[in-house]
């Protein structure tokens, strides 16, 4: 028999199957969104362990709230809303000092296998410089307030459009626009030492 790839199942179908008690379908949803959700949580909270915990919490909460999930929303925007709220709530309740998260830190040393092959071929200096740049960007990201960081992460890290971001954060698109502008201006100021002269 010829092996072929089946077309992906729509989120709505998987959600419907979950509601009918097919727990395995929820595993597929987790698998589908775990990397994106983890990345968003990580960029939001700045700690890998917390991000993993928060992403799991978001999935658990989503499962237990499936009955309340409205069909008008996309599953992932609803899931992101849960996750972002969890991150913000966690940071309010349990503020943690921000650590440098760039390559070269102990956290990233543990996942050396994930490095791109091209990165390994770079000179040591370039790797160190790139790591410092990344750490600077991450520190800058962590230094702005949660509301602004959420918009930047959802837009520039996850690539969502303004309408989706507004739906997740439950704010008008105009507010998304203004927060994103202010967040980028704040980041620009913090990153000025490494950004150099912008090419106009």
């Amino acid at each position, binding site marked *: *028999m*010829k*092996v*072929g*790839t*089946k077309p*992906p199942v729509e989120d709505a179908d998987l959600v419907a199957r*979950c*509601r*009918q*008690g*097919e*727990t*395995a*379908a*929820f*595993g*597929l949803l*987790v*698998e589908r969104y*775990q*990397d994106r959700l*983890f*990345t968003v949580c*990580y*960029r939001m909270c700045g700690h*890998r362990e917390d*991000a*993993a915990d928060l*992403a*799991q919490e978001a*999935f*658990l909460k989503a*499962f*237990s709230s499936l*009955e309340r999930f409205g069909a008008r929303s996309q599953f992932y925007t609803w899931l992101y809303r849960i996750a972002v709220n969890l991150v913000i709530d966690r940071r309010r309740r349990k503020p943690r000092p921000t650590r440098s998260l760039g390559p070269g830190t102990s956290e990233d040393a543990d996942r050396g296998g*994930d490095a791109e092959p091209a990165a390994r071929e770079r000179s040591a200096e370039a790797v160190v410089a790139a790591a410092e*740049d*990344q750490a600077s*960007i*991450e520190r800058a*990201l962590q230094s702005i307030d949660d509301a602004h960081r959420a918009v930047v992460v959802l*837009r*520039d*890290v996850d690539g969502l*459009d*303004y309408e989706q971001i507004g739906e997740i954060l439950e704010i008008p698109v105009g507010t998304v*626009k*203004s927060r*994103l*502008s202010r967040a*980028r*201006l704040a*980041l*620009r100021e913090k*990153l000025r030492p490494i*950004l150099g002269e*912008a*090419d*106009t």
Partner: protein
Amino acid sequence: MALTDDQLELLSAYVDDELNHSERGRIERLLEHDASARRALAELKQTAARVRGLPAERAPGGMAADVLERLARQQLLSIEAARGASRAGLGVVVMRRFAIAAGLVLAVSAGLIGWRATRTEHRTADAIDTAAGTSGLSADDHRVANGARRGSGASGNATTPAGPTGRDGLPPMPIPDGGGKGLASNIPSRETIPVANGTLTPAQLKRPWVQNQPLPISSTRPTRDRSGTAGGATDPTNTVVAEAANPPALEGPANAANAAHGPSSQPTPLEGQVTLRCTMGAARDAVLVRLDAWSDASSAAASRTGARVLRLDPPNYLVVGPAAAVLDMLMELRSTVAAESAEVVTAIDPPDGAIAKLLAPALPPTTQVTPVAPPAPATRAAEASSPAPDADTILSVRVTVPADRPPAPAP
């Protein structure tokens, strides 16, 4: 000239191509003759590009499995909470809810396996066989986990796990040969308890399943002989048997069924004991038990009966094994151990001892779970030719001996 907030917002949105036609025209006219606007745009682009350049992260391996496992554990905790409420006097109604929560535990556990198989199915057309090969499960096992196969229980011959002591310090408990003896394989299964097939929904979790299917309550308890079989004829309906110090006068079909059990079904009221029993009219051969206490006597009972003890979050234990072995163990606990409480929270239908396989992903990685081997053809034939000794499946049982009751001498 300094740019206004409005202009900066438009520039930022211009970076993202999120402007409408008129806004775009407006900002492009500004960019044509305002150098500061062009510089601001370049900086906004540069800043956005830097953030976008952050590497995409990968979730820790096994997150989906972890999530499903945590769902299962959450339900176990809800069982514990319900147990506490039961002790406060909520009684049988709460016990019924135990069954719901317990069912979800198994539904989730089954879902974990089901997810793995389903995930694989979604990847390639013939991936079930591949998954079976890599996981050690047969392709049919995966289909069972997805609810594709219906229960027709078979007795479990046994394999004996050998291995190091688990992290909880408990020795691995063997699942003996013939542990499932007496649990008939020739009783047609019925699709009456959705939890057994992993079809319990979140909505169902919040309401007693007995609402959908009223369960008659009896004040008698069929006893089990030492071979692990329960006396009694097959009851084609789901039945709950509740026992209490002062059993209420309840009537229902179960009374008639239990009346047919003969001498072995004499009411044996025990002070302070509440037993909830659900018969499903389908043969099962493995039971998942939750204990809230453990002792040397418990270990001895488990060892004698062949039940396998696994520890989840202390002090919660799961006892897995052929139904007869686990229920024997409960009987031993009841007769030998004071202040011991045990609860069979659910049973599932593993035609070939698949409960161990189903549970394995939901248990700590240090836990050893050994599947029960399918019965030899001769055994199966012998069982098929004999009257059904036990068509009942214990879906939910709770055995509690009051603390002030002196322990009976061990047999």
